[in-house]
């Protein structure tokens, strides 16, 4: 049986840009998740989203996996980048696009 932890580790390893969020990019179920989607979309980053509301074990598991109590959470190339506040701060300081570029992530709008 696959545990939530294994599933999370697999998703993180297999997706260059992975957003754990509430809802989907088209229908976010929380303002903070919507803000994270907005930032990634503005930069033109292709990302995979995991809707934690669909699976209570993933919802709890990701908090333990990252040692981070809230959703959304962004992973880039296996590295935990942060939640909504950190993404916003990096974006507003013009640090997010260079960070992603350095990681080899394609940005369509920059």
């Amino acid at each position, binding site marked *: 049986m696959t545990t939530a932890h294994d599933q999370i580790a697999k998703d993180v390893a297999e997706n260059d840009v992975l957003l754990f969020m509430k809802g989907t990019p088209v229908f976010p179920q929380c303002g*903070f998740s919507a803000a994270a989607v907005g930032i990634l979309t503005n930069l033109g980053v292709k990302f995979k989203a995991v809707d934690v509301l669909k699976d209570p074990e993933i919802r709890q598991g990701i*908090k333990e996996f990252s*040692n*981070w*109590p*809230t959703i959304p959470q962004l992973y880039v190339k296996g590295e*935990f*980048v*942060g*939640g*909504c*506040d*950190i993404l916003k*701060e*990096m974006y507003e300081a013009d640090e997010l696009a260079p960070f992603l570029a350095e990681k080899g992530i394609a940005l369509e709008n920059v």
Partner: protein
Amino acid sequence: MGMPAADIEKLIREAFPDADVTITALADDDDHWAAMVSTAAFKGKTRVQQHQMVYAALKGRMGGELHALSLQTAAKD
């Protein structure tokens, strides 16, 4: 539900006695707060680590009774 600003500030100050803490309400519901925390303890730490330190100071309340705390951190000299 929710948590008054004074309680949030108290927990943060207990963990970081030198901290400058500013808490503002994002909504009038005791549940949506923004906190700006600046302490020397953040020196040399990444943003993720700084936020994790604040969450640790809040002793598990973040994501529980405290639903929404927008956080901004800075290292103080």
